[in-house]
């Protein structure tokens, strides 16, 4: 096979593997772990659109997750509206909020944006915890919302088995990956990269940097909110601390950064490498050594940032190209 065909086939093979995986996994626990892994890969890839390409540091993405989760759950519990529709409504709401945060802060030093996202997410959580009702919408304050497992089916995004959830999040991940790949090769991707790296030079080359970042922020917050609906439908229970937490916001950023911000595969690689660490340390050391996985994350993060600032995807990409090179018939002699 030639290099080109190989490079084209590799992602397809990976996708086929992902599609077939549920056939091999029988245990519901492992299935759930896989679903959560894909869920994180989706979140970090969505984060990457603004955190990676635009060169800013959003640290409050769980707020968008919360907006998505609460919007679709309230709409479906109180008005019987399908979560699929509620998902879009939540996405649009999150997008508006994301733009409102970015609008004033993208013109300032990056530190302000990072702080604004944290403050918004924390303030939003405090609000949700304090509000039982906004007008006709019941939020239930700290007690959260429960989705009764009644009336399964695709339209209600509610299933008795895990498999459908697996395929839904897999499709979402593939779509957001394709979108990322498309953007990184488009004018917007060039503009985001340029504006993130050298804003003054970018402006002189005709780029409205703040506007490019806003577009990225809008997309990222929209996509993140969609995952909120998925989270609610998967767990059937949401409360402020579960969907809007600083820890979650940071974990998303950590995974994406360790994997490699600004690359397409980086955030997914990060989730694949780090989620198991956190799952297994929680399963095996959760009682004796609480918080161990966060220490491991912290150490990995510092090591990666020190020695491989572009993330683990860099050496792994090199390895991948080397393997492809070995396998292909038209090997480069270089």
């Amino acid at each position, binding site marked *: 096979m030639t290099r080109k065909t190989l490079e084209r086939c590799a992602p397809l093979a990976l996708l086929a593997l992902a599609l077939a995986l549920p056939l091999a996994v029988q245990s519901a626990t492992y299935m759930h772990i896989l679903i959560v892994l894909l869920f994180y890969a989706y979140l970090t890839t969505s984060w990457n659109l603004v955190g990676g390409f635009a*060169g800013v540091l959003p640290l409050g993405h769980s707020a968008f997750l919360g907006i998505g989760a609460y919007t679709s759950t309230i709409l479906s519990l109180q008005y019987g509206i399908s979560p699929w529709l509620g998902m879009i409504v939540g996405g649009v709401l999150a997008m508006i909020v994301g733009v409102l945060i970015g609008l004033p802060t993208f013109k300032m030093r990056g530190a302000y944006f990072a*702080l604004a996202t944290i403050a918004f997410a924390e303030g939003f959580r405090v609000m949700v915890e304090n509000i039982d009702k906004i007008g006709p919408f019941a939020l239930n304050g700290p007690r959260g919302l429960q989705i009764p497992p009644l009336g399964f089916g695709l339209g209600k995004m509610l299933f008795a088995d895990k498999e459908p959830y697996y395929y839904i999040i897999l499709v979402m991940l593939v779509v957001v990956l394709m979108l990322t790949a498309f953007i990184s090769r488009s004018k917007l991707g060039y503009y985001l990269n340029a504006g993130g790296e050298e804003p003054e030079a970018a402006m002189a080359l005709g780029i409205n940097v703040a506007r490019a970042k806003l577009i990225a922020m809008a997309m990222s917050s929209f996509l993140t909110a969609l995952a909120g609906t998925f989270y609610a439908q998967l767990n059937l229970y949401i409360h402020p601390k579960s969907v809007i937490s600083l820890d979650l916001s*940071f974990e998303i950023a950590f995974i994406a950064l360790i994997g490699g911000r600004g690359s397409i595969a980086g955030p997914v690689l990060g989730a694949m490498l780090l989620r198991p660490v956190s799952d297994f340390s929680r399963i095996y050391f959760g009682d004796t*050594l609480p*918080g161990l996985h966060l220490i491991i994350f*912290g150490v990995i993060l510092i090591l990666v940032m*020190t020695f491989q600032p572009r993330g683990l995807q860099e050496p792994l990409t090199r390895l991948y190209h080397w393997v492809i090179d070995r396998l292909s018939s038209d090997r480069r002699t270089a």
Partner: protein
Amino acid sequence: MLYILEDAINGILMGSIYGLAALGLTLIFGVLKVINFAHGSLLMVSMYVAYWTITLSGLHPYVALVIVVPIMFVFGYFLQDIVIKPIFKAEKNVREPITVIIVTTGVWYILDNLTLLIFGPQYRTLQDNPLRGKMLEIGEFMLSVPKLWGFGAAVLTTLAVYLFLQKTDTGRAIRATSLDREAASLMGINAYKIYNLAFGIGTATAGVAAVTLVPFNNVFPTVGVLFDIKCFIIVVLGGLGSIGGALLGGIIIGLIESIAPQFMAATWAEAIVYGLFLLVLFVKPAGLFGVKNDW
């Protein structure tokens, strides 16, 4: 009315301690141009150091200053030198290195969870505490004595840092670096060493804050997170990098926290603080007092 006045005064006292806690954050930002997300954790570590120093030695809580402050200076100095400096070096072409910010969050997670592993989640309060619940009665007012001392410590430390930056050669070198790193290195100033110093001093001021906090504030692994976010808010209110602004920003937060609960649920007061923060960020990002760097 009298109650509100009393609350206001207590709010100012507590707020000044918040300001003291935030002082190091604003100093470090002023020099390194990096938000140190581990600042709250450094405060937490300082509180543990203070707690154990006082508990094991049986000294008066405030005597612990002479031990806590040097320890925290050294801790901060080498944290910057060993963990953060290499990233600055790796990204020296980047004007505002995001990786440095993210590494400080890594430090936050490590410190908080290591403390959790070592000392467990329980809340600790000083035993044999001569300051516990001590109140000063001035006419109709009841004022907390440890908070009064805290107020004094906050004002003195802020003044000391300010004078240090204005009057000493080292202080001038720090200021030069904060204004223009490249120009400073041309004048023979080793910027990385200045960074170490700034980080050390910033952490040492967190040590002062910790010693004033321990007599009346519980010590637990996530105590830093509470202060962390407050500190972020304070430094933005006061103007990122402004020394005096930290104290004023802290007092504003203290006042809101003490007065707002008279009129609404306490948790809503917290929401108001976040709201004010976002408002200032959007409307007057240079801070309420409009001074970016007053040194």
